[in-house]
């Protein structure tokens, strides 16, 4: 039988160390909604989402109460809209109507975000893909809860540089469209290399075409729990440190598995995956950067940071893998800047730069995340930063991503305030050397040699 120490250990994690289940994300296929008439398509989308997600929020709240574990977000992901809207949409404006429908569905279901305003263009863009991409700035400006993502490359297919260059423009435009809100639209827009089909985390969640009709994916969290656990082994060697992280990740993930199973059973929707990510929030004590400091670097970004992050990421995976029957999504440590108090502090103290962040993305999930850059950053420079990050993902056979906010009218040293989970960020300097001759070449970067395993 469970003993008193175990019970209080679990409750201490929840009450004092910010342990929570970060999200239950309900993936819904919209492939059966496809119609050549836009109004019919919108009605079918509404009907399918409303029907499938009707009990999501209430069920999440019930589970949360019964087990005494906070479930912070309930969310929805849908089939990439470029695939669903291809037959009906003749203009980017038509796609915006779909975004509005998704937003209405999210509000009705009571979820805080709906992901899947997306296109998968790692090799080429269909007309529909390109129209959806061109509609993103307006779609994100006119909606509140819609999140957008574009997959620009993969290890199997290489990098679609035409799409990378286009996304440089689109990210810039999105910032312009939402300049009255510090470029908030860009916080809901992410580009990927090797995007997973079953990611429960926003902004990049979409319901992949390989998925079934509906699926429950769960993202656990708990940077604070890991930090508290390793505080106990401050003077220990790497063996003890790694074992401690692994055991903690196991415990955290078991709760994710429990919540996922319960949500799946109560909603009558199959369980997809647990995502093992350590996802920070702006709250003090819920920081991945603080774990890196506890491991032994003075600030995130100091020499040793990449190695510390690599071991953290690997131990989280090793501990989590055995704790869940199916693991997927992004699964690792997230290193967003604006959403992590320790990362913000590291930038403010001059310890953390964009270049160091790029190095860190080689060993963790996911990428350059929630980074505010000067509004004067050119679209081709944004495309160059994206291309670099996509190359890391392509060559290392991992997911990488970019979520940059070129904040209009702001310069290095200024701040953006998004509030809530999205946090606040200091505007970081970007290299002023150009790359337009590279990004404007046109075409694709071929798939790397690693792709040919057949």
């Amino acid at each position, binding site marked *: 039988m*469970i003993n*008193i120490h*175990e*019970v*209080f250990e*679990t409750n201490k994690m929840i009450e004092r160390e910010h342990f929570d289940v970060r999200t239950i994300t309900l993936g819904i296929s919209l492939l059966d909604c496809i119609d050549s008439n836009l109004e019919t398509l919108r009605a079918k989308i509404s009907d399918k989402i409303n029907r499938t997600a009707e009990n999501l929020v209430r069920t999440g709240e*019930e589970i949360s109460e019964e087990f005494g574990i906070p479930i912070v977000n309930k969310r929805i992901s849908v089939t990439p809209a470029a695939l669903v809207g291809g037959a009906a949409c003749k203009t980017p404006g038509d796609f915006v109507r779909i975004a509005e429908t998704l937003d209405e569905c999210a509000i009705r279901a009571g979820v805080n975000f709906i992901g899947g305003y997306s296109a998968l263009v790692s090799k080429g863009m269909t007309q529909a893909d390109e129209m959806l991409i061109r509609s993103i700035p307006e779609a994100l400006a006119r909606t509140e809860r819609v999140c957008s993502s574009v997959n620009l490359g993969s290890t199997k297919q290489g990098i679609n540089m035409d799409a990378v260059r286009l996304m440089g423009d689109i990210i810039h435009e999105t910032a312009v469209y939402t300049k009255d809100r510090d470029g908030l639209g860009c916080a809901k827009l992410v580009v990927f290399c090797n995007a997973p089909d079953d990611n429960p985390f926003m902004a990049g969640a979409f319901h992949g075409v390989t998925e079934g009709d509906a699926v429950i994916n769960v993202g656990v969290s708990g940077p604070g729990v890991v930090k508290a656990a390793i505080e106990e082994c401050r003077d220990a060697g790497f063996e003890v440190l790694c074992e401690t992280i692994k055991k903690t990740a196991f*415990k955290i993930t078991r709760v994710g598995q429990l919540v996922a199973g319960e949500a799946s059973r109560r909603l009558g929707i199959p369980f997809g995956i647990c995502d093992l990510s350590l996802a920070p929030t702006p709250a003090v004590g819920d920081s991945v950067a603080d774990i890196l400091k506890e491991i032994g670097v003075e600030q995130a970004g100091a020499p040793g940071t990449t190695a510390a992050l690599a071991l953290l990421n690997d131990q989280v995976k090793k501990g989590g893998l055995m704790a869940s029957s199916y693991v997927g999504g992004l699964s690792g440590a997230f290193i967003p800047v604006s959403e992590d108090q320790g990362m913000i502090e590291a930038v403010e103290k001059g310890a953390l730069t964009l270049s160091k962040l790029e190095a860190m993305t080689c060993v963790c999930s996911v990428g350059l995340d929630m980074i505010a850059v000067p509004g004067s950053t050119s679209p081709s420079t944004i495309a160059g930063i994206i291309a670099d990050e996509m190359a890391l993902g392509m060559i290392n056979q991992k997911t990488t991503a970019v979520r940059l906010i070129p904040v209009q009218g702001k310069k290095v040293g200024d701040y953006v305030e998004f509030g809530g989970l999205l946090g606040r960020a200091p505007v970081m300097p970007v290299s002023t050397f150009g790359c337009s001759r590279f990004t404007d070449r046109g075409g694709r970067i071929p798939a790397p040699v690693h792709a040919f395993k057949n």
Partner: protein
Amino acid sequence: MKKTIITVVGKDTVGIIARVCQYLADNNCNILDISQTITGGIFNMMMVVDMTEAGKRFSDIQKDLTAVGESIGVVIHVQNEEIFDMMHRI
């Protein structure tokens, strides 16, 4: 049988266990196990309870016990045992 774990944490005072047990008895909840410690004047108690025959819904018992806790200056949580089993048992 679905077991429920009730935890009580707070400053030690006369009658904490009595109040909680009285409530459980009144609502037909069977106590299977009790353990407690007092460290630095802080009272920590855990009860394993069978609530299958309880006359009230789980969420109502949670609310009632929260109120009982408030009236005697302690924090009471009522949780399904599975969360602890999942975390601490393979």
